[in-house]
């Protein structure tokens, strides 16, 4: 399907270029190809990111006939490197938008792309060496932890007890957790334990069940991700302790946002970490190619606090996430 849409746009671009020959031969030079390499949709957040990437590409191809896109999704770092090499060798891309599957293995292949004079936009996960990319677009991981931590510090009082569900052990998870701990420091909130729920509903369900058997008093849960929040909520419901504690997830999954819009007391707030950041990256890259708008540098998308009052603005019913 991707291949077909790619060929269609080539055809459209060719027709458009042909139509403009009267006005000038420059039209030929003004068509650009942008390669987009992202991890495949293996969990909710990446599913949302894939959705937004496809959506943005469709929209941009309609708006700018001179742009064409190559989208590749990879299940591991090795496949992603192959995809990028293919894009450079066979598709002759003018710009690359990449969300590195892992930082280290992708660093030198992306460096090679940049050295070939191709514009490089890196999304979300930085490369191991600084200064390779022309544009860096990312969510604010420390901010994600800080905004949640500030809410805990404001809402809870000294001596209140919380438990934390961490994600897959990564730098990204560490940044979030460190910022969260810094934000609650001095508030007197007691963190009973932090275990990894791996951003997975089932794992979070099991870990939360064990927290509930272990601790007689829990006032709040920082689930740090909406998939984990759903698992934790189910374990809490099973224990019949729903009145006792509330849960803060993160990333704004539509089911959670829908429950917040209904005013669910167990879900007081949420923190954004938008999968649509891929749209920001693709849009800016396209803008840089087709216009003289300067787009190099770093674009950090702030993490916002979602409350029942503003939840409507963060509800995307069409997205799978």
């Amino acid at each position, binding site marked *: 399907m991707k291949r077909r849409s790619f060929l269609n746009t080539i055809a459209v671009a060719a027709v458009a270029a042909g139509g403009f020959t009267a006005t000038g031969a420059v039209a030929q030079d003004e068509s650009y190809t942008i390669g987009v390499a992202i991890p*495949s*949709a*293996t*969990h*909710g957040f*990446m*599913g*949302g990111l*894939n*959705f937004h990437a496809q959506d943005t590409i469709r929209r941009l191809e309609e708006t700018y006939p001179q742009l064409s896109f190559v989208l590749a999704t990879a299940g591991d770092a090795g496949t992603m490197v192959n995809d990028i090499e293919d894009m450079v060798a066979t598709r002759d891309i003018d710009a690359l938008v990449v969300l590195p599957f892992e930082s280290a293995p992708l660093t030198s292949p992306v460096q090679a792309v940049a050295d070939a004079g191709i514009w490089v936009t890196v999304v979300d996960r930085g490369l191991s060496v600084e200064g390779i990319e022309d544009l860096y677009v990312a969510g604010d991981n420390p901010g994600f932890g800080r905004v949640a931590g500030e809410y805990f510090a404001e809402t809870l009082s000294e001596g209140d007890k919380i438990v934390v569900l*961490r994600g897959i*052990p990564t730098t990204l998870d560490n940044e979030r957790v460190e910022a969260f701990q810094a934000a609650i420091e001095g508030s007197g909130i007691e963190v009973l*334990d*932090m*275990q*990894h729920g791996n*951003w*997975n*509903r*089932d794992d979070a*369900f*099991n*870990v939360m*069940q*064990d*927290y*509930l*058997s*272990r601790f007689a008093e829990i006032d709040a849960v920082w689930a740090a991700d909406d*998939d984990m929040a*759903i*698992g934790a909520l*189910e374990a809490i419901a*099973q*224990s019949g302790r729903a009145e006792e504690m509330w849960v803060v997830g993160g990333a704004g999954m539509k*089911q959670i946002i829908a429950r917040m819009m209904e005013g669910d007391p167990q879900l007081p707030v949420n923190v954004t970490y938008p999968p649509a950041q891929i749209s920001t990256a693709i849009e800016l890259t396209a803008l840089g190619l087709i216009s003289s708008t300067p787009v190099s540098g770093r674009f950090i998308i702030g993490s916002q606090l979602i409350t029942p009052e503003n939840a409507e603005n963060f509800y995307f019913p069409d*997205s*799978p*996430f």
Partner: protein
Amino acid sequence: MSDTTSTAAARHFPAINLHVLGPVLALLLLIALGAWLNPNFLSYGNVTNVLARSAFIGIIAVGMTFVITAGGIDLSVGSMAAFVAGLMILAMNSLIPIMGVGIPVILCGLAVAMIAGFIAGWLNGVLIAKVRIEAFIVTLGTMGIYRSLVTWLADGGTLSLDFDLRALYRPVYYDGILGVGWPIIVFALVAILGEVLMRRTAFGRHCAAIGANEQVARYSAVNVDRVRIATFVLLGMLVGLATIMYVPRLGSASASTGVLWELEAIAAVIIGGTVLKGGFGRVWGTVVGVLILSLIGNILNLASMVSPYLNGTIQGVIVILAVVLQRERKAAGAR
């Protein structure tokens, strides 16, 4: 439950008691360790939690015991469970406008799960027995196929069961009889029936015969292809059954459902004393293996005595130790 089955098996093998009891000893040690570390470990709530969450892998691992005993392997069960769960949710959601929210929709969902499990297992079995492709390769292929199919069905996101229907279906995981949850009851029944099937029936003996030496089994008038396909069909249907117990828990399926279940099931089978190369299987051992694996995770969560980064290390060490102990005893006792 494991106690009753273990004494039953001990009666069958009075001479090799020592090494048969290896996994049971490991399980008892873990239970003692857990009780010592946390007073809540033996509480009713924790025990039922651990048994109920063991049920999915446990039900699948019983089926896996037959496949491995017959000299096969199935890597596709985790993906298959996710795919069956996805199909089941889609089927039930789409039947609601026609049938309304009620028990009949859920019964249809159960039928879909069992039929899908049957077909998936049968496909694996036919490709292996009739087309004669290595079980490892066939199920490696179907593992990828089902995983990507469920991702595709969910459009990369999560498939969620209709909210009202979920409320109706939820008791299948959370309720039970006399405080024993349905998943635990189903797991126990599957384990007992599996043990009987393995020990008391021609099918069980044929599985072991094929696993030990396929040629000899063939010359002994065992219908090798049929038995082999039957082991995969049995496993597929047990995957369907496990899915039936799984879906009411969180009411959803996604690409991350059932990840690595196949390896957990295989590990449980091997810890329990079934030979990976086939020829000998022990269903009650598999049950002990499943409980050992669940208890390790549970104890690590309850105690938080090591960095959570090291959880995988502890699990790996215990799995290998359990098998090493057993092998040494087996070598000393049997040869």
